[in-house]
């Protein structure tokens, strides 16, 4: 990726300035309560990894943070600005919150450069030549400079996901949300995407990552959030969490991975 790759370990928990503050976030789909009072702070440069069983609400949590899901109650603050009041200009907030999806969601009718430039040029009204230079340098950093004029259907899953990450990054977001971004990838392509994310983490980008890649979670996270049934059950430093989880539910959850890993061998 770049020279910051050689720095030892992740940036180490951020520098304290708070980027995101979530209080008592509640979200239901009909009768079903998906998020049951989530409170969480994320500081500048911190890498937060959210894990937990399917349906525990982790993806919904991310989607609430950029307004793709309206919340029922609670409060979200982005750099001191409450973004959950009625009348919030989500188009403006979303420029500050980058999102990468499980299924890439590149725009199939635009080539790689077109995908990456849509936000900076149309939304942020940046000058095209300058935005293009920026985009190309990002593409180069993720190893895709030569695919700038390719269309999404000509790319592998791993390449598509790297483009999707660049598409979010060129907006210069204050925080990046990754929603199970390797879950749809063939195993041999997972690594290339995780490497990009690890590089970003080491550069000090503030990130919230929802993933089932436990080894990656341990390597990249400053803090692990374990969620179950819409609530945060446990949060701790990665080594502590993976070696001796405090809660019974986290232990059981990690055991499932143990088991499946043993079976695979």
């Amino acid at each position, binding site marked *: 990726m770049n020279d910051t790759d050689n720095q030892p370990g992740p940036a180490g928990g951020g520098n304290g300035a708070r980027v995101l503050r979530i209080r008592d976030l509640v979200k239901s789909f009909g009768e079903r309560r998906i998020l049951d009072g989530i409170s969480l702070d994320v500081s500048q440069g911190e890498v937060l990894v959210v894990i937990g069983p399917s349906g525990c609400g982790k993806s919904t949590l991310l989607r609430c943070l950029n307004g793709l899901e309206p919340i029922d109650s609670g409060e979200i603050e982005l750099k001191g600005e409450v973004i959950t009041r009625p009348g919030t200009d989500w188009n403006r907030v979303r*420029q500050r919150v*980058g999102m990468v*999806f499980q299924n890439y969601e590149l725009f*199939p009718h635009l080539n790689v450069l077109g995908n990456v430039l*849509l936000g900076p040029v149309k*939304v942020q009204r940046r000058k095209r030549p300058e935005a293009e230079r920026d985009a190309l340098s990002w593409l180069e950093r993720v190893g895709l400079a030569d695919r700038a004029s390719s269309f999404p*259907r000509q790319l592998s899953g791993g390449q598509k996901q790297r483009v999707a990450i660049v598409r979010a990054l060129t*907006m210069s977001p204050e925080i990046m949300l990754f929603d199970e971004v390797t879950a749809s990838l063939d195993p041999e392509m997972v690594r290339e995407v995780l490497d990009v994310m690890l590089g970003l983490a080491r550069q000090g980008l503030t990130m919230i990552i929802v993933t089932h890649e436990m080894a990656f979670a341990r390597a990249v996270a400053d803090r692990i959030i374990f969620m179950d049934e819409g609530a945060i059950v446990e949060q701790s430093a990665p080594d502590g969490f993976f070696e001796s989880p405090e809660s019974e539910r986290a232990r059981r959850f990690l055991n499932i991975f143990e088991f499946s890993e043993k079976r695979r061998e």
Partner: protein
Amino acid sequence: MDLDFVIACAPLFAASAWLTVSLAFWGIALSLALGLLAALAGYYRVPILRRAAGAYIELARNTPLMIQLFFLYYGLPRLGILLEGRTCAVIGLTFLGGAYMAEAFRGGLTAVGRTQIEAGLSLGLNRVQLLRHVILPQALAVAIPVICATAIFLMKETSVFSIVALPDLMYLAKDLLKEGHSTESNLMLVLSYLVIILPVSLLFAWLERRARFAGFGS
């Protein structure tokens, strides 16, 4: 086969063909605009417009063009609205075509996945930008085969224009048939339609290939 007759009549057919083409062009162009508006009214669930669009589509699709023209040309003057034959033709074709085009666009719009829209929203695109840069291009690519088929259908529908006293191809052929020379007239009629519609068909085939190329599949 009377070649002299064919040669003598060729300019007449050319003039009528040109009239047919120009009326069809305007009818198709306006159909596209009307169809897109009607489809968008449905897509965005615009309160009253959405119902109006639905009613319009049913009305236009379920009545023959000939009856619609009859109404415009012979019915409206009784209400004090006098329209020229050409105007009637273009309005009639647009009224009919708009409904089919609306259905074509609707098919395209519903084919654009919710997750694509979310991806656009996540970049901070507003509603207009989202429509223009994400939804419409993809919807159009899906709708193009139906749009092309509809355009060709509309070109053929022009053959009823003679009832509003327009000297189009059909009108001319009927005129000539009265004077005998039925084989030649019929042949030239068929040829004329072929000559104007075949290039359009080929153009659309090319367009469809382009649309397929532009997109789609993973």
